[in-house]
């Protein structure tokens, strides 16, 4: 660097750069104020709330049975996990029985949606890294092609491609026909097949590895204190997965592994998610093969949703959404709507790590780090 450049920089000091809220690689409306010295970040201040819709206040005005579809709009890449977490907390407080077949079906849909969500993450990560992957859109197209088959399956099953509205308090809304079960099995096989293809474009690509390796390292102690969850936590060497820690629905009966990496960098988070796709495929195959017979909904039908009331109390239930631990803290007062419902959003917790790890990174590495955290802003802002 020439002498003149240094003088100019000393005079100007830090440069504050606003990345977002409208920026292609902030995955929604995240605003990052980056204080730069040259190309190195010295301070990063995330600004959120641009997508705040007040669902927690809204939840206090609606009846319990009306709320599941509302929460599906929170995390718009893994909607099933949202409504699943909500129905779980109501079932826990209200003591509702879930038929075994319904529990297995809910797990099946959740796992397929995890694959779909991870595919969106990988595709958009490819866009973020841009030139590293031959223009970037190649990976994106491959991922979205595979995701499309899962959405088609959802449409066949529920009539909706995306916000499936599948989970009900005390059961599931739609049943799986034998033909559809075979299709779900085929989707699992396809997911495993495509992994090789995706790996050849990413983890076996030297440019991709250079962009991801030793970038945005999160030490395990920091990960625990900040409370990052899901793949981000497990990439830092902490073996905690809600599906094993507080098992729900069909998971206690299923055989799967929890991928863990020790490095804590962006590449480790990538590897954990790729391994999760593999495990999800394994789970889907088990769920299709061992699907029990029986009813999927046994609650007495209500004439008016306001007739369903919960006894006073507090409960917390969490699911492992594609982004991590998605929890609902429900306070009931005996009425027909929640007295207070707090959503523990995984993206919110994962995004909080940015001010801790961004200082010292290059500007381009912030993009890779952010991509590897996979925040969904609908989930952050609620």
């Amino acid at each position, binding site marked *: 660097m020439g002498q003149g450049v240094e003088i100019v920089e000393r005079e100007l000091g830090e440069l504050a750069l606003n990345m977002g809220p409208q920026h292609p690689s902030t995955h929604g409306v995240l605003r990052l104020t980056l204080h730069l010295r040259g190309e190195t970040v010295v301070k990063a201040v995330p600004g959120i709330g641009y997508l705040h819709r007040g669902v927690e*206040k809204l939840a206090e005005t609606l009846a319990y049975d009306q709320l599941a579809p509302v929460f599906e709009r929170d995390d718009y890449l893994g909607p099933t996990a949202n409504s699943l977490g909500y129905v779980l907390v109501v079932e826990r407080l209200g003591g509702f029985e879930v038929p075994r077949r319904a529990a297995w079906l809910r797990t099946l849909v959740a796992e397929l949606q995890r694959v779909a969500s991870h595919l969106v993450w990988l595709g958009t990560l490819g866009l973020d890294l841009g030139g590293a992957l031959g223009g970037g859109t190649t990976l994106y197209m491959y991922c979205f092609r595979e995701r499309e088959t899962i959405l088609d399956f959802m449409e066949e099953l529920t009539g909706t491609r995306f916000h499936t509205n599948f989970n009900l308090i005390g059961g599931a809304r739609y049943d799986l026909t034998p033909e559809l079960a075979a299709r779900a099995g085929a989707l699992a096989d396809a997911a495993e097949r495509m992994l090789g293809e995706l790996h050849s474009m990413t983890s076996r690509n030297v440019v991709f590895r250079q962009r991801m390796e030793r970038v945005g390292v999160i030490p395990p102690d920091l990960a625990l204190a900040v409370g990052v969850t899901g793949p981000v936590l497990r990439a830092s060497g902490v073996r905690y997965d809600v599906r094993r820690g507080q098992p729900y629905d069909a998971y206690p009966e299923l055989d799967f592994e929890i991928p863990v990496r020790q490095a804590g960098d962006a590449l480790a988070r990538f590897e954990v998610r790729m391994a999760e796709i593999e495990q999800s495929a394994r789970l889907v195959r088990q769920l299709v093969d061992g699907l029990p017979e029986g009813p999927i909904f046994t609650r007495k039908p209500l004439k*008016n949703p306001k007739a369903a009331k919960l006894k006073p109390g507090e409960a917390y239930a969490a699911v492992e959404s594609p982004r991590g631990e998605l*929890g609902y803290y429900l306070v009931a007062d005996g009425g027909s709507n929640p007295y*207070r419902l707090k959503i523990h959003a995984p993206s919110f917790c994962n995004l909080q790590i940015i001010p801790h790890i961004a200082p010292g990174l290059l500007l381009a590495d912030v993009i890779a780090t952010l991509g590897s955290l996979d925040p969904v802003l609908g989930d952050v802002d609620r």
Partner: protein
Amino acid sequence: MPAAEVREALRLRFGAVDFALGVEVPREALLETLRALRDLHGYRFYICASATDREGEVEVVHGVRNVDSGDSLWVKVRLAKPAPEVDSAAFVFAGAEWHEREILDLFGVKFRAHPDPRRILMPDEYEGHPLLKAFPIDTPWGYRPPTSTEKP
């Protein structure tokens, strides 16, 4: 250490009272309780903080977890209105920073010695705290949620 013994230890040391999901402690003992949970009992993972607006007081809970045993514990404090105030837990668990900002934003609870006490979800110039029960739900365009006694 099993969860029941942890609760017993907290009861003896801080006068903690059990509730469904964890323990309730006096307001002054919150930080010491969280520190004891982190350093003595292995609850090193910070889940989140939440608040509930009750009559005359605001309840704040902090959730912590022992990732080795999988046990979660929620620590609750009750803060008297109209000016609820409590020590910030952000220096015990770094993750509390944003969750406390959210409670400050939506409930108006003041966190003493918070490193960055700004609103987080609502705009900076916003007035009021939306999740308080007293906050009107009527909007400028006249929406009111339907109640069961009213005919649409």
